[in-house]
């Protein structure tokens, strides 16, 4: 009896596994595969899903591409890198094995740096969408990117804190071992101290959800601003804790906080959240209204966008990245990754987030404008402030 039961259980498990590996059949049409290397779970799951939404939306309105007079169906292959530097290389390998011609992503610089060598070895070009750490493209000729970089963003934020907020002492908090937040915090401190301010710098370990003491430290040190460009998951807890302790300093962060997760966490609370980002909602009214219809039209999309139809900057960036990739393919006149890589250096495209053109050293986008937004805690929306342009 026991043996029969165990055999039945084993068979059930095997069947479940077989069902998972669905066969892939291709029709008569020619296809080209674009890989999407994004987190759908873990610390950055919320942001990764919003960035992926931009790609999905772009794919829904432009599902084919014309290369050398032939029409190719665009197949988009999504993998989840789980926001984890350990899992990123195997997720990257999955995309390489799927035969992608070009890859987009990832949200989060750490996973991009971790996955980069896998793509480089396979000779497949990658277009980073919102990974802002300089180390992503440095020394990796296959990694490109369409967003601004952290040295720029850190300078903008430091200037904002020093000049606009009029603060001379800042509290900086990043996650231990996280490339994105540690990098941005360093550039911020460099710029802020260059302006004549002082910083208190602290780090919190992975898996931490108790931010009481960090907020208490910032309060006790009389810091005028709390700079913490960490994942949205930690951000919710920081906002909550700041309110719970009745702290009055503004919370300042980078592009990761441009998410409705933050708006929901701050809504109805007495807190000042200010961020820098890539795209302010409302800059392109057509794009905004069309994507809202698309998001609201499907329950899964709505859930992936965090339950409402706020357009996150990363969504707009994902949308542009998809079209930028198509433009590179057309310029290359081929679906061969090596030819696309050659073409990427000189591809130009004007998207909803502005013109995209890459520099010739690391393949980073030439961008010098960051948009500043402040959370309106009464209505749960972002208020656009004056954009900042440097250089």
């Amino acid at each position, binding site marked *: 009896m026991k043996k029969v039961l165990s055999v039945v259980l084993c068979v059930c498990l095997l069947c479940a596994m077989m069902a998972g590996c669905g066969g892939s059949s291709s029709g008569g049409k020619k296809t080209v595969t674009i890989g999407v290397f994004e987190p759908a*779970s873990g610390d950055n*799951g919320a942001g990764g899903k919003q960035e992926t939404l931009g790609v999905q939306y772009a794919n829904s309105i432009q599902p084919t591409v014309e290369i050398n007079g032939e029409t190719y169906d665009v197949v988009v292959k999504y993998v989840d890198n789980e926001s984890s530097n350990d899992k990123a290389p195997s997720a990257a390998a999955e995309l390489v094995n799927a035969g992608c011609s070009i890859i987009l992503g990832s949200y989060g610089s750490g996973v991009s740096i971790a996955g980069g060598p896998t793509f480089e070895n396979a000779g497949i070009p990658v277009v980073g969408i919102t990974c802002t750490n300089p180390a992503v493209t440095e020394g990796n000729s296959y990694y490109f990117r369409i967003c601004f970089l952290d040295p720029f963003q850190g300078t903008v934020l430091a200037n904002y804190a020093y000049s606009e907020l009029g603060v001379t002492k800042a509290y900086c908090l990043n996650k231990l071992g996280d490339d994105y937040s540690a990098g941005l915090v360093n550039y911020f401190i460099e710029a802020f101290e260059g302006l004549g301010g002082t910083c208190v710098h602290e780090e919190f370990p992975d898996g931490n*959800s*108790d931010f*009481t003491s960090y907020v208490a430290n910032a309060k*006790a040190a009389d810091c005028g601003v709390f700079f913490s460009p960490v994942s949205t998951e930690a951000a919710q807890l920081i906002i909550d804790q700041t*309110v719970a302790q009745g702290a009055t300093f503004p919370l300042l962060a980078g592009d990761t906080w441009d998410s409705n997760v933050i708006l929901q966490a701050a809504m109805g609370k007495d807190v000042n959240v200010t961020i820098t980002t890539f795209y302010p909602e409302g800059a392109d009214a057509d794009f905004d209204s069309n994507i809202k219809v698309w998001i609201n039209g499907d329950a899964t999309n709505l859930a992936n966008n965090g339950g409402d139809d706020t357009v996150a900057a990363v969504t707009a960036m994902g949308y542009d990245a998809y079209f930028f990739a198509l433009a590179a393919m057309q310029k290359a006149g081929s679906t061969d990754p090596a030819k696309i890589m050659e073409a990427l250096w000189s591809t130009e495209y004007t998207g909803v987030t502005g013109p995209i053109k890459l520099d010739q050293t690391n393949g980073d986008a030439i961008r010098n404008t960051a948009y500043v937004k402040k959370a309106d805690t009464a209505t749960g929306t972002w208020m656009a402030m004056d954009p900042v342009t440097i250089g």
Partner: protein
Amino acid sequence: MQFLQNPMPYILAGISVGGQYALIAIGYTMVYGILRLINFAHGDVFMVAGVFMVFLSASLPLGLAIPLVLVLTVLLGFVIERVAYKPLRTRNAPRMSIMISAIGVSYLLQNCALYFTGGLAKVYPQLPWLSDTIEIFGAVTKRVTLITPVFTIVLVVALVMFIRHTKIGMAMRAVAKDFETSRLMGIKVNSVISATFIIGSFLAAVGSLLYFTNYASVTPTSGGMPGLKCFVAAVFGGIGSIPGAVIGAFVIGISENIIKGLGWTTFSDAFTFALLIVILLVKPTGLFGEKATDKV
């Protein structure tokens, strides 16, 4: 060095988090005392209780959701024991196999939570009164911070009374002392073990209510770090001893926050585990883990 100027917020946070750790640590220590099993899934039961609350409170009033969370969590603990541990135990599997089964359950729960939450952090509902902000000795905090230690101590005292003065409590002590002999004496060992899991899961559910009210975000890995630290607390206090687990949990919670207040934020977790090593070097059985103590 903020701690030296104004220690109040750090000590408050420490006592509060210590109380939450204590409720979870009891689950580890009781199961170990009776079965000599480290129930690795316990931290995840705590996390699942949080997920239950998030989903139930979305559709039910809190007065109904909270008891339902407690009942469901208890049921979960009971089912885990019956499905994943009991069959192995009754067929005399080596203890290591049961432990591996516990690790399996832990990952199963995490992945189920990943599936149901879609991998995103869920905002825990605000509990009225508990979530209110209050001021005490110049430190501003949520009311739950003050309620937690009191609540924990009341529950622990009730648990100790239960074990000392009821029939099932007596059976628990007997099974902890000698598994085989108590079976020969006619004690229904299986129901005693089920009762242990039920109590452990109940306390984990209460712990999760208090913990997530303070740190209002539930993710599939939320159980990981607290689970690990509570296990450390249980070992620290002498695994198998309930007062030991409670004291261990408070020591860890308070010292962790003091370390952060002293400015060594980077090392707050490293310190917790270094402390464990030092204590075990000096007292290999933990603070209260002497052979003479009764194990429940």
